[in-house]
């Protein structure tokens, strides 16, 4: 499997007129493993949400090569999921089969077995009947990874997948991410840990609302780029003038 490319064409995503992602252009290569890095408020989660289709661009577009957007595997931030909802672990994992079962289709025995195998792969054998509210943060994140495994998506987007997760769980989940990469899927993860990015992610998009650097991790995460990202992220102009792209100015 080789995941499709995702192209960002002059993408701007704004909240109340203020751009959280500003004139971003570039491509996530097919089968690439990319970290999105940057300070809080740099637009990382906003970009992921725009790719998934959760946020509508204020300008530009997200373009996919041979991919239906609903085929993206998406791991939202843990805070966006209602953990107290009375649903058990196996049913949560089975949601990964949504594209096969849809809103109304039945769940076959084979699918149930696949969900149990996915649970075993994230070291949660025997947890199927537990309510998700009983799980630790790390266990719950494993459940969401099992759901992604069942989704079998060619593109996987992870929004802060290792936040509040212990070292052993992180290592296990990173191994799964590496396996997805080896299988040729396009994997994009929003991360904060620079060491982790350098060790496990060959490519990095460094954001500070605009693109600071995008390419091989060693170069993108250079001290000069990180300094520039920090300086840009701290800038917030409440009375900024209306943005007029250079093309219009030239015209």
């Amino acid at each position: 499997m080789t995941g499709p490319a995702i192209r960002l064409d002059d993408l701007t995503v704004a909240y109340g007129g203020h751009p959280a992602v500003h004139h971003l252009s570039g491509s996530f290569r097919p089968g690439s493993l990319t970290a999105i890095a940057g300070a809080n408020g740099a637009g990382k989660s906003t970009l992921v949400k725009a790719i998934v289709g959760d946020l509508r661009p204020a300008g530009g577009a997200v373009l996919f090569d041979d991919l239906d957007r609903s085929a993206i595997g998406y791991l939202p931030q843990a805070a966006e999921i209602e953990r107290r909802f009375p649903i058990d672990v196996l049913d949560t994992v089975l949601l990964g089969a949504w594209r096969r079962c849809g809103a109304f289709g039945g769940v076959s025995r084979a699918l149930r077995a696949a969900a149990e195998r996915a649970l075993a792969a994230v070291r949660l054998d025997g947890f199927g009947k537990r309510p998700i509210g009983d799980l630790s943060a790390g266990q719950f994140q494993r459940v969401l990874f099992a759901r992604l495994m069942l989704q079998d998506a060619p593109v996987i987007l992870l929004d802060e997948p290792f936040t509040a997760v212990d070292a052993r769980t992180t290592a296990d989940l990173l191994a799964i991410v590496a396996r997805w990469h080896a299988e040729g899927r396009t994997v994009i993860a929003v991360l904060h840990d620079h060491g982790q990015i350098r060790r496990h992610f060959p490519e990095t998009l460094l954001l500070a609302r605009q693109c600071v650097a995008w390419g091989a991790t060693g170069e993108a995460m250079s001290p000069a780029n990180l300094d520039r990202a920090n300086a840009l992220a701290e800038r917030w102009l409440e009375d900024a003038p209306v943005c007029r792209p250079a093309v219009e100015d030239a015209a």
Partner: protein
Amino acid sequence: MSLYDLLIVPFSDYGFMRRALVACLLLGVGSGPIGVLLMLRRMSLVGDAMSHAVLPGAAIGFLAAGGYSLFAMGAGGLVAGLTVSLLSGLVTRTTVLREDASFAAFYLASLALGVLIVSAAGSSRDLLHVLFGSILAIDAASLELIALITSLSLATLAFIYRPLVVECFDPGFLRSVGGRGGLYHFLFLLLIVLNLIAAFQALGTLMAVGMMMLPAAVAQLWTRTLPAMMAVSVLTAVVSGFVGLIASYHLGFASGPTIVLVAALIYVGSLIAGPTGALSRLFRRPHLAG
């Protein structure tokens, strides 16, 4: 007094008691699962607000029909309830107000408008009927409408169960797989309005939501899976209806409030005796070895 006299005679002797009992059973079966989902979606107060929001429509139906007509009041209530839902949704999506705040604003206006319409054109007795219901006055036609709403409600809920559950606990996932969360949310609001209309004549606009929220709260105190919660909620509503009717018959109390109070008593009992209740804190339970 024998057990037969206590439990059976009120229903065997009086047709209006039998109809009231069937209405309670139907309302319990329809409203129980809806209440559980409302509570899990943290929309308990939205349900309450909605029950008031149907008032102006129901009041206009009441006046147009020249008295209590569940069909006329139901149609008016449906239009008013859906209008308030849609306007609240619109305000939530286009302003900084959250859904509960926009609902609060619209339902207060609706309640005031409804009370104004009934008190201007009807008597104070009419107003009492609209506000507190008259379950003992339910006729066969009203019963058929309640049965229709309950059947429709259960069938729709069964049909949209999966997307509704996902929309409730992981809306981001549903959007990412192309699920139309807004559509299911709207269908759910429609079911709430329909069930409130069904409960309208029995419990009135002020307590119609009682058969939804109190049983749902009880269910959440006793069980931990969604199907079990729905079953316990239905059971609680049905038992509240039966016991409430018996109590109101023998004690001479108003039926609607007695039914809601019985549900409230079960709720208080569950707070004390439920698995996470006050009593459980007095006794230490043995823990497992691993």
